[in-house]
C-alpha cells in the first residue's frame, strides 16, 4: 500500500516551503497542492497562511477549496491551520471589516489590544518568541502538544488573534502585554496554531511530529 500523504494547501501566499520541509523532517510524505482532488485524497491536511484574512479566504474560494476543506473535516480528517490558516478556522474576522471564515471552530478573530493590561501602548504586530502555557489542566494530553512542556517558546508574527466562543476549544495560551492570546485551538480533529511551528525550532518540530503521528 502506498502511504497516504499530508497535503499542504498552496493558495499563493508566503513561505510554504518551510512548512513542507518541517513536515518532511518529521517523517511525513508531503504534497503541496491547490488541486481539490489532491486535498480530498490526503490523509491529513495543513492550511498555512500569511497575509490578510479577506485576501486569503478569497484565494481559497477562487481555487474552489472551501467545500473540500469542510468536507474533510466532516470526515474527521485531521486539519492543522497555521497562523492565518488557524484564523480561517473560526466563523469570521474583524480584519478590515467583517469577513467570513470556515466556521469549523465557533468564534471570531479580533485585533490584539493595542494597550497592555497596565494601559501602556504596545507594539503590534506581536513578533518574536513567546512562552506557551496550558489553557487548562491536561489540555495537552493526547493532542498535538503532547510532546511539549509548559514554557516551551514558539515564534509568533500576527496582529489579530482568535477568540473562540467556547473556552474548552482553547489548548494553549501566550501572554502579550498581560493579555491572554490563544496560541493553539482545537475542536475534534481540527487544530490551529497561531505561531509558526515550522519556524519554532525543536519545540515546533515536536508539534509537527505529533500531528504527523496522530
Amino acid at each position: 500500500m502506498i502511504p497516504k500523504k499530508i497535503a499542504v494547501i498552496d493558495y499563493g501566499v508566503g513561505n510554504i516551503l518551510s512548512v513542507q520541509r518541517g513536515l518532511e523532517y518529521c517523517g511525513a510524505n508531503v504534497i503541496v497542492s491547490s488541486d481539490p482532488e489532491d486535498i480530498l485524497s490526503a490523509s491529513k491536511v495543513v492550511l498555512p497562511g500569511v497575509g490578510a484574512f479577506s485576501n486569503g479566504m478569497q484565494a481559497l474560494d477562487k481555487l474552489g477549496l472551501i467545500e473540500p476543506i469542510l468536507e474533510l473535516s466532516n470526515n474527521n480528517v485531521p486539519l492543522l491551520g497555521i497562523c492565518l490558516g488557524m484564523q480561517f478556522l473560526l466563523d469570521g474576522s474583524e480584519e478590515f471589516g467583517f469577513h467570513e471564515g470556515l466556521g469549523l471552530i465557533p468564534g471570531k478573530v479580533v485585533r490584539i489590544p493595542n494597550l497592555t493590561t497596565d494601559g501602556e501602548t504596545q507594539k503590534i504586530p506581536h513578533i518574536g518568541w513567546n512562552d506557551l502555557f496550558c489553557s487548562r489542566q491536561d489540555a495537552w494530553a493526547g493532542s498535538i502538544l503532547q510532546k511539549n512542556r509548559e514554557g516551551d517558546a514558539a515564534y509568533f508574527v500576527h496582529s489579530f488573534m482568535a477568540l473562540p466562543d467556547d473556552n474548552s476549544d482553547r489548548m494553549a495560551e501566550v501572554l502579550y502585554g498581560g493579555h491572554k492570546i490563544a496560541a493553539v485551538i482545537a475542536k475534534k480533529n481540527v487544530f490551529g496554531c497561531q505561531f509558526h511551528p515550522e519556524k519554532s525550532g525543536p519545540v515546533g518540530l515536536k508539534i509537527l511530529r505529533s500531528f504527523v503521528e496522530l
Partner: protein
Amino acid sequence: MRNFRLIARLDIKGPNLIKGIHLEGLRVIGDPREYARLYYLQGVDEIIYMDSVASLYGRNHLGEIVKEASKDIFVPMTVGGGIRTVEDVADILRAGADKVAVNTAAVANPNLITKIARRFGSQCMVLSIEAKQVGEKRWEVYTDNGRERTGLDVVEWAKKGVEKGAGEILLTSIDREGTRKGFDLSLVRAISESVQVPVIASGGMGKPDDIVNVALQGGADAGAMADILHYKRSEVSDIRAMAEAAGLKVRRI
C-alpha cells in the same frame, strides 16, 4: 517585556560566508550552510543572510543557500542584498525566507517599501539601514553595503520607512561593524526612540556583555551577531545564558 532576540548575521559573497571591517576588506570564513546549521543547533532565534555584493551586480545568490537551509533549519530567516522588486521578494519567500531586508532599492524608491508591505505584510518588510556617524548624534544613510552616501539623515529615514510600511529595522553601524568595540548605543537609542517597530542592532558585537547593553541602554529588540560567532569566540548558548543571568529576558531553550 518581550523576549530579546539573538540573531546570527551571515554576510555572503558568491558561495562564501565572509566578514569585513566597516563592511569592507571582506575575508572568507567558510561555507554559510555549515555555519547557519551550527548556529541553529546552538539555539539562535533568527538568521539574517546578506548578499554583500548583490546590489553592486544587481543579483542575489541567496535563493539556493536559503532553499538548502530550509531542509534542516527551522527558525525565521531574513534575506537581504539586491532585492529590487516585488517579484524578487516573492521568489525569495518561495525559497524558504520569511522576511526580506531592503536598503539600496528602498532609498532609490521608497514606494517599494509600501508595495512589499501591502503584498506580503509589513512583518515581512525589514528596512535595512547602513548608518555612518557624521556629527554629534547625527548619522547619514549609506547604500550598496556602505559604499555610497545618500545625504539622508538616519532618524528621518527610519521614520519615513516605517510610515511607508516597514515592519522592522535592521540598523547597521558602519563605524562599528567588524570592530568588536560594542554596538553604537546612541545610534540604536536614537532610532528605537523614534519608531514603534522592532529595531535589530547590528555592528560591533565584541563580547556577550554588548548584547545586554544594546538591549537595556540602546532599547534594541534584537541583536545581530557575526564576528563573535564566526570566529568561535562565543557560542549562542553561552551568550543566551549570560544575557539571562544579566537580567535580560530571552527565549528559554
